[in-house]
Structure formats: C-alpha cells, structure tokens
C-alpha cells in the first residue's frame, strides 16, 4: 500500500472521528450548555467537512500516482 492509499484511509478515519466527536460534543452541549462544548462540536463538524473537501482535492491532485 502506498502513502497515497494510506493517506486516504487516514483521512477517512479522521472524517469519521470528526463527525462522531461533533455529535458527542453537541449532545453534551444540550446537557451542560457550556460554550466550550458548542465550540468543539461546531469546530469538529467544520473540520470534518474541510477534510472531506481536502480528500477530494487530494485524490484529484495525485490521480496519476499508484495506490500500490
């Protein structure tokens, strides 16, 4: 597996973590009403969306490099 393929795997794992963490923090926010939980939840969601966009850009940029 090349670095390209491993990077795609890593970005996928990061997107999943960001999405789950966003849900986790926003759920906490409904209980605690703490601003930090809201910021972390929103920030994590935005980061996850950013990572999806980056992943698409990355695949386009390195389309000529093998996955092996």
């Amino acid at each position, binding site marked *: 597996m090349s670095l*390209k393929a*491993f990077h795609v795997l890593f970005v996928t794992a990061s997107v999943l973590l960001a999405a789950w963490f966003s849900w986790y923090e926003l759920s906490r926010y409904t209980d605690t009403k703490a601003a930090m939980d809201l910021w972390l939840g929103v920030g994590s969601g935005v980061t996850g969306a950013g990572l999806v966009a*980056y992943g698409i850009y990355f695949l386009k940029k390195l389309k000529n490099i093998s996955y092996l």
Partner: protein
Amino acid sequence: MEIPYTAKPRPDTGLYNAKLGIWLFLASEVMLFGGLFSSYILLRVGADLWPHGMLSIPIGTFNTFVLIASSVTVVMAWASLKLGNPGKFKAYMAATILCALGFLSVKSYEYYVKFTHYDVWFKDDATAEKYFKAAYGEKGTEETRKQFVERFHLHNTKATYDPAQIQLAGHIEGNPLCTNLKKLVGAKQETIKFTPDAPLGSHEHPHAIEVKLSDVQRLSSYVPAHSTFFAIYFTITALHGLHVLGGAIVLAYFLLTVDKWWKKAPEQFTNRIEVGGLFWHFVDLVWIFLFPIIYLL
C-alpha cells in the same frame, strides 16, 4: 556494492525493498499497540471504579488537530518530490516537524499538569469529613461526595461513598512535582498547604487549607502509581510520544539532507520520504483511536 531495489520495485514483490520493510515493521507495531489497547479494555471492564473526565478535552482536541495537519503536510512533502519540487518539500516537511514539536510540547504540558495535581486520602471517616468541611464549608462532605460521583459516574459499580475512600483533589503549595507522603514525611514536613479543586460547576478555588500529614493515609499526584487509569494512560501515551519523537527526528534528518540526496538519488530519496510518511501516518492513526478511547469514553 550497490543495494538493489532502493528505487525500482522488485519483480517478485512489486515493491521496492524499503516499502516491504516498513510494512513488516508496522505489522509489529500494530501488535504492540494492539496489545496495549487490549490491556486497556481488559483493565477497564474489570475495574470496580474507572474515572471519567480526568483529561482536558480541548487540549486533546487541539493535539488531534495538530497531528491530522501533520499528516496532510507530510503527504504534501512527498507529493512535492513526486512532482519534482524540492523547494516545496522543504516547506511542507518543516511544517510537519513543527507540528510534531507542537504536539510534544502540549503533551509535556499535560504531563506537568498531572504531575502537580494531587489526591489526598485520609485515615478515617471523621478526619476526612473534618477536612472536607474545612475545604468547602458546612456542606463539605456533600460537595466532595458529588465530585467523587462525578469522577466515577459512568463506571461506578461498587462505590461505597465511604468518606475515607473519597479523595480530596487539589494542589500543594509550591506545586511540587510527583511527591508523595513518604517523601514529605522523610523531609521532616508535618503539614502541607493544600488548595482544593473548585467545587462542581464553579471555577473558583476555595482557600488553601492546612493538612496534617499525620491525618493522611495516602497522597499521590497523578502519576502512573496513582491508579490503574493513570498507569495505562501514561504507558500508552508515553510510548506514542516516543514514536512521535522518533519520527520527527527521522523526518528532520530528511529535511536537513534533502539537497545532497536530491542531487545524488532523487528517486530513492522520494521513496525514503514515502516510507517515513507511512510511519508518520501510522503514528497519527494510533492517536485517532487513542483520543476518543482515553479522553472521551
């Protein structure tokens, strides 16, 4: 003698040798960290009490973000070489190393905070209640109990709420690193000034109280010997930190020798960066699992 297959793939494996080597090495790393993750799970499910919320989520989140960013920059460094641009490689690799140093600095700060934060257990119920009231006023026992329940609320299967088992958490005056009852008594100290943690839902610390060491049964900072949680936390995160440090040293070597290697053997150098990047991604992937397991769940 020239080492074969450093640039071109071997016909039988379809890989250049270093790539096969790094994947064999990473397989052994998976077993190492897999063993530690399994230990964590077994210790946790077998524990009567398991603390929750002992680590700072914002700090852990920041470090997670730093490591994800470093994976992006390391892969961009490799892509720059693939596209024949060693200048951009230098910028991306320097950013990766800065991220690694940032991660380690934040982790060191987290360790420092733990090494200067203490729990005190008292000799008997009456003594414990006396200090709880000194710390938090008339409702001191109730407040300390609340903190105890909050710390263990997710995994509190056999909590007795016996005051002598409930610890008072806070800081010792002067913020000594990793001290304990034996060391303090050995230094002929009879009392300590102790600032208890803020009550639940507040950020205001109570006034410091004087604690007689003769009333104390156990005193420990948040070091591996404090509890099973901190033992496994420090074992896994310190091992991970060593991997970050080792990876950063190797990547820094690549950054410092790029000009020489790029002139001599550009294809082989690009492959070396790929191998370094694979290791770096593995280390970051370990953190992607560590962060939710240790900080959140």
